[in-house]
């Protein structure tokens, strides 16, 4: 089904993936953003939606990245300087992960290396590199009420990142709820992977072709509105 020498269609930019992920967040919810692409999500929410961002290093209520004025004690989990909203709070790492593991984070947006048909996530360890960097990913995968993975649909080599079974070491089993890529929005449920939306100009068949696991294509698949 996959032709390694072919290239996938042009899909969304990183920024537009982040924008689409931002639309997935409920007004008034508490959200944690992973390092990398997910960090961009903070720039795409409306202040009126009252979304509170949690950073696992101990902040509830930062509004976005603030490159202007660097205070080394006021950063998110990716080390980037942030601004605070009115009503923000600080706490230590123990309290931060009590909040995360205890189910008090409504949604997390994390990057991914692979997601399986069962919703297993691999995102912390590249076998060719070894060692790894796990940060708070395993706790977020286990604790966040809704887990959104924002990633490129395929690797640089054109290999699908959505697979039957992950061959990269897992972050957590059966944890992913939604996958948002440059090509599609895919829901993960007990019945499998279900295509919800495609990127503009991308057909459901093209998404299926670049997906390494069975994909349910409902009769009507919407195009993302961005």
């Amino acid at each position, binding site marked *: 089904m996959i032709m390694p020498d072919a290239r996938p269609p042009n899909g969304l930019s990183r920024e537009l993936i982040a924008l689409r992920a931002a639309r997935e967040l409920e007004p008034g919810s508490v959200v944690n953003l992973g390092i990398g692409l997910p960090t961009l999500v903070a720039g795409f929410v409306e202040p009126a939606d009252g979304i509170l961002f949690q*950073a*696992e*290093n*101990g*902040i509830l209520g930062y509004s976005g990245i603030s490159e202007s004025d*660097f*205070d*080394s*004690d*006021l*950063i998110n*989990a*990716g*080390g980037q300087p942030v601004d605070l909203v009115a009503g923000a709070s*600080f*706490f*230590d*790492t*123990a309290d931060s*992960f009590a909040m*995360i*593991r205890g189910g008090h984070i409504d949604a997390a947006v994390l990057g991914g*290396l692979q997601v399986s048909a069962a919703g297993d996530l691999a995102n912390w*360890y*590249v076998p060719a*590199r*070894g*060692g*790894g*960097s*796990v*940060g*708070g*990913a*395993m*706790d977020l995968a*286990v*604790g966040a009420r809704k887990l959104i993975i924002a990633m490129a649909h395929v690797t640089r080599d054109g290999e699908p990142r959505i697979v039957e079974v992950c061959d990269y*070491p*897992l*972050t*957590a*089993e059966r944890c992913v709820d939604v996958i948002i890529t440059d090509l599609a929005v895919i829901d993960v449920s007990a019945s499998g992977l279900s295509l919800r939306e495609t990127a503009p100009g991308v057909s459901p068949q093209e998404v299926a072709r670049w997906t390494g696991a069975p994909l349910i294509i409902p009769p009507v698949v919407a195009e993302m509105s961005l």
Partner: protein
Amino acid sequence: MSVEVFDSPAAAVADIPDGVTILVGGFVSAGTPSNLILALKQTGQSGLTAVANNIGLGDLLDELCEDRQLTRVIATFAIRASGTRSSRFEELYRAGEAELELVPQGTLIERLRAGGAGLGGVLTKTGLGTMMAEGKQTLELDGERWLLERPLRGDVALLKAWRADRQGNLQYRLAGLNFNPVMATAADLVIAEVEEIVEAGVIPPDQVGTPGVYVDRLVRCAPIPVRWDG
């Protein structure tokens, strides 16, 4: 219980022996005891195990790998997915000269908390079904599986706070708390660098982040701003 004030970071860490386990507070740039880490480089202890959130490019802790002072690291961020540039730690790790125990962040802080709080361990779901569970005990209780994580303590803790009083009470600023308050409870010798030392009573009792009972040594020094690049 009484806290000792040192003149310099080097003096505060001078008698730390080789081969000990050192908890290092801070999260990337926030609440990181940069002066104490650099003093450790200067005094040259070796065979050290460091427990810290992160060791990577731009981290001062990585400097301790230049002279191979670290032989073991317990951390949550260590080897980047992208290999465009390597940290000194990564080079030591690849050369087999330093070991790495990677721990999920929420588990690392719970293990440290257990170490400081007299608990024998905690049960978590984090890491179940992953490499992190290898060699660890799991328990099934009321039909649910849990991973048993054991306590972690240090011989020494190096912390950074905003200011201290002469009782050793520490006050943190902004997101400078992170690992510092828990690490303060989990080491035999606790050394804190602070920007200011005030009289007892100046820090309001409800703004003490680490009670003085945990703190053995203080040193006042200008903070070294750190900017992380992973």
